[in-house]
């Protein structure tokens, strides 16, 4: 078992074009470290100064992680994580 992570188009350069990759971790933070080991560079696109980037949305089982603990959001085998860039501007 593992955690499936859906990768948005703009970040697929880090996953060899894959739309989804799998990773492991008991929290979002641990998962991101695990992903970084296999897909170097990804972490820096998700985090800024140790926090989730303001304009990157991460969801665990359809919940925006900002409402379930952010980087501390707990994860279990079989969870589905989706990464989506915010669509925003001025």
């Amino acid at each position, binding site marked *: 078992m593992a955690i499936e992570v859906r990768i*948005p*188009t*703009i970040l697929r350069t880090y996953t060899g074009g894959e739309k989804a990759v799998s990773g492991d971790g008991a929290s979002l933070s641990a998962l991101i470290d695990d992903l970084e080991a296999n897909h170097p560079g990804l972490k820096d696109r998700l985090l800024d100064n140790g926090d989730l980037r303001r*304009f990157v*949305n991460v*969801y665990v089982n*359809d919940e*925006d992680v*900002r409402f379930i603990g952010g980087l501390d959001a707990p994860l279990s085998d079989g969870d589905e994580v*989706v990464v*989506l*860039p*915010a*669509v*925003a*501007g*001025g």
Partner: protein
Amino acid sequence: MVLTIDQATYDAIVAHAKRDHPVEACGVVAGAAGSDRAERLVEMVNAAGSPTFYEFDSTDLLQLYKQMDADDEEPVVIYHSHTATEAYPSRTDIGLAQEPGAHYVLVSTREHGNNEGPVEFRSYRIVDGEVTEEEVAVVAQLSSN
């Protein structure tokens, strides 16, 4: 590069921008992945509710992308309005643009607001911070494929 858009979709985007003025309106036109056909208009809620900023609501954003994924679609057009400035990408627009394959459409309602009257309707590619304006071709209907 050119954005080809049908008259009904064009009119609906303009109507959305006028209706939401002075708040920025935003949305997408989805189409089959790789087709460059702007087929399915989806008006989005501007979660920022602001005259100077827009952001798709995060829950709506997830639903939109899940739906597009299920239907093998992609965002062909991403549009929003400027309500006090020209229809040109702001520095913020350029910094936050994260769909290099999309046509970024800007509509300016600065002249007539909620009222009848022409608007500026322009389209751009925004890739790695570089803006390229493109022609907008409004057609009666998209050609059948």
